[in-house]
Structures are given as C-alpha cells and as structure tokens.
C-alpha cells in the first residue's frame, strides 16, 4: 500500500504545483509578457548553452541571471530557489559526492582514509551548479507560462495537430484520473486491516492500474461522442494566436546576444 499512497501523494503534489504555476503565470511580470514561442526557443537555447559550459564563473553568472529574471517576473525568490534545489534530485548529490574522492588529482583533504582531490571538488561543484542552473531556467519557464499557451506555442512549431490534441487531452485527464486513483486508494485503505506485503502491493497496484485503464477507456469513448456531437473532425485547434511585440523582439535579441557573447568569451574571441 505504501506504493499506492506514495503515488497518490505525488499526484497531489503535482496538481498543487500546476495550480501554483498558473497562479504565478497570471502575474504581470517580464517573462509572463513574452510570447510563449519566444520563451520556448529561448529556454531551449539558454539551457543548451548552460549545459555546454565548462567554467564555473560563467555558469554562476547564468544562475544569477535566472534569479534576476525571477525577480523581474515577480516570482517569490525564496520559493523559486527552494523549488530549484528541491527539484535537484537527491541522486545528483549521490553522484557528486563520491566523485570528489574518485577523480584523481591533487589531494585537497582526507576523510575516513579517503583522499579528496581538487579536481574532484571542482568537478562536483561544476556538475551540481550546472544541473541547478539548467533546472532554474526550466522552472522559470513553467512558473511564468500557462499550459494552454505552451500547447499553442507547440502547435505553431508545426507539430501535427493530432499530437497537440492528444497533449491537450492528456493534461486535462491527468487530473481526473488522479482523483479516481486517489479515491480508489482510499477505498482500499478503508478496508485494509494492517499492511500489504510487497508482492501483494504490486498485484494490488496492477489491479488499480487495470481498473484505471478500463475507466480511462470508457472515458475515452464518451469523450469521443461528446466531441463528435460538437463537430469534432479529428483535431482540437488551439485558439490562442500570438503576435510578437517589442518586448518579444527585445528578449529574442537579448537571448541571441547572450549566447553569442558567451561563446565568443569561451572560445577566447573576447
């Protein structure tokens, strides 16, 4: 049952996060005003740049830029930072720590008979900071964008309409199925004296998932009829239309400049 309860909790956290995201996405800040298409492209370009950087000082600069953008977008900086570092998976630490001792090089300090190297420490800092900076930009994006804007932006990138339709429906019905799953879990818990064994809990999970599949299936059927009744012809068209304005051009120019300067700098051209 631990398995299922864990799942339910995750689902709740997800919905909570989604609700929070929407809340900040409605604020009147810098990134909220930017065309989602520009934002998507900028996000990908900036994160790719961060990932390819090998200098701690430059990554740190990008990290602070992310914080500055968070402030300009009226995001609560403390919560933003917390979400970034909570999102950095525990295993980043699990990976980073031992490598301090494993990567050979000039000894820095000794612990329990192990020798930490300067190279190891440098690597661990570089690695963790890079992950954190990349995640910061992703979260910056999610906290300032609304889901239907993101989907509309994807649609304008020539992603087939059917994929957009499926994505829209997915996002909508995650909430509904999550609620059903949570209720089913509660209904089981209400009749469960004690705890389930591990294999038994997997089997229970299998039944839950099977039942959810059948419900999802029935829902899919009804959904089709409801859509057909209103003139559905294979696709849901996103309604949002974007017009790039001054802010968008300025932000695009800023991103391009940022990336070009960074590369020029790392290649020793500046």
């Amino acid at each position, binding site marked *: 049952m631990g398995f299922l309860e864990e799942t339910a909790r995750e689902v709740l956290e*997800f919905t909570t996060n989604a609700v929070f995201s929407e809340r900040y996405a409605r604020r009147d800040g810098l990134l909220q005003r930017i065309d989602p298409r520009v934002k998507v492209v900028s996000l990908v370009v900036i994160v790719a740049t961060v990932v390819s950087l090998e200098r701690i000082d430059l990554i740190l600069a990008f990290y602070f830029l992310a914080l500055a953008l968070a402030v300009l977008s009226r995001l609560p900086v403390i919560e933003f930072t917390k979400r970034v570092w909570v999102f950095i998976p525990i295993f980043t630490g699990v990976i980073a720590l031992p490598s301090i001792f494993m990567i050979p090089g000039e000894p820095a300090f000794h612990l329990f008979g192990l020798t930490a190297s300067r190279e190891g420490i440098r690597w661990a800092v*570089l690695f963790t900071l890079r*992950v954190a900076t990349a995640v910061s930009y992703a979260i910056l994006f999610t906290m300032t964008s609304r889901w239907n804007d993101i989907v509309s932006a994807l649609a304008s990138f020539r992603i087939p309409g059917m994929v957009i339709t499926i994505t829209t429906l997915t996002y909508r019905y995650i909430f509904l199925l999550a609620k059903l799953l949570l209720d089913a879990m509660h209904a089981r818990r209400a009749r469960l004296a004690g705890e389930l064994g591990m294999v038994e809990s997997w089997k229970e999970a299998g039944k839950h998932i*099977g039942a959810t599949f059948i419900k999802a299936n029935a829902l899919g059927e009804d959904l*089709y009829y409801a859509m057909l009744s209103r003139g559905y012809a294979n696709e849901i068209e996103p309604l949002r239309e974007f017009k790039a304005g001054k802010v968008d051009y300025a932000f695009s120019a800023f991103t391009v400049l940022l990336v070009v300067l960074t590369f020029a700098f790392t290649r020793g051209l500046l």
Partner: protein
Amino acid sequence: MHIPDGYLGPYTCAFFYLIMIPIWYKAFRWLKNLKPSQVPLLGVLTAFAFLVMMYNMPVPGGTTAHIVGGTIIAILISPWAATVSLSIVLLIQALFFGDGGITTYAANVFNMGVVLPFVGYYTYKFLSERFKLNEVISAGIGAYIGIVTAATVAGIELGIQPYIQPGYCPYPLRVSVPAMAIAHLVTAGPAAAVVTAAVVWYVKKSRPDLFAMRTIARG
C-alpha cells in the same frame, strides 16, 4: 531512468535529437491509422501512462527507477502509440516536474519511449506467438526485459560521457551500466513485470473486447 540536464554532454544530446527526428516522423505518421474515435482514447490513455509513471524510487549511482507504462500501451494498442504517449508524458514531466531535462529530452524519449516499448512488445509477441506462452506471463516477461534493456541503454549513455567529454556524468561504463541495470533487475523490473502482467490479465478477463481493438489500430 529520467536523465536530467547536465548529465549528458552536448554531443550526446544532439545525437539523440537527430536519432529521434525520423522516429517521431514515423510515429506521427502512424497516428493517421487511428480511427477518429481512437484519438481521444489515446489522449486519455496517455494521461493514464503519466499516472503509472508517477512513482519514483531513487537508485544509488543512477538516476531514478520506476514503472513505465510503455509496455502496457504497446501491448494494448501498439508500440508506436507508446512512443507518442511517452513523448508527451516526458514533455509534461520535463516542463512541470523537473523530472528529466530539456537537453536530454530526446535521449529520455529514446530510452523510455522507443527502446522500452519496442523491446517489451516484441518480447511479448515472440513469447506468446512462437512459444505459445501464456499471454499474461509473456507480458510480464516483456515488461521486465523492456525496462531492463532501456535502463541498460541509459547506463551506456551515461557511461560513455567520460570518454567523449569530461565534466558530465563522471562514471565510466563499468560503473554506470551495472548501477542502472542491477537497480532495474532487482527493483523496478520485477515491479513492472508484476504490474504489467496483472493489467493484461485484468483487461483480458474483464474487457476482452479491448484486446480486439489492437487489430483495428494496427490496421
């Protein structure tokens, strides 16, 4: 199994984006085989796949292990449907969860949305058709082999980093592959096998007509 940003170097990331382009093209083309009534259904089933993937257990030395709905969707509809579903699920997870990454998105889709469902599905098909093995057991074994293979592939992707460009995942193949593989052999693998077998058994018993749906979808 989600590889976050910063674990794979830029070359590896670009490589997988290139690999994925023709695969996505093929998968999106496959969607045209769906009847109008099956499009909403696939939307709801993708939501279902998303929920199935919610449960993460940390794996020492690797990233995460969890059940992936890929084999289930591959068996119940088609491996191409699983590719589309998982691409959408991983996109939502990367954008809203920080689960997985943006630069590593293509690599993650390749592991969980291509390797996993195709290996799982063809193992299942091979066992149940050639060896006349019980469909439920075949599905379980398929899911097991699918998830372990996908994890091994992820381990290889991580493990080649030190050889390509230092500064990303530091562990060489001899560490990363066993770490990912063993974690999935002993934890997520058996869980996925039992869950997948249970789902197939359950659906076969309660809605055999849904199994008939596959032939239509593959049309």
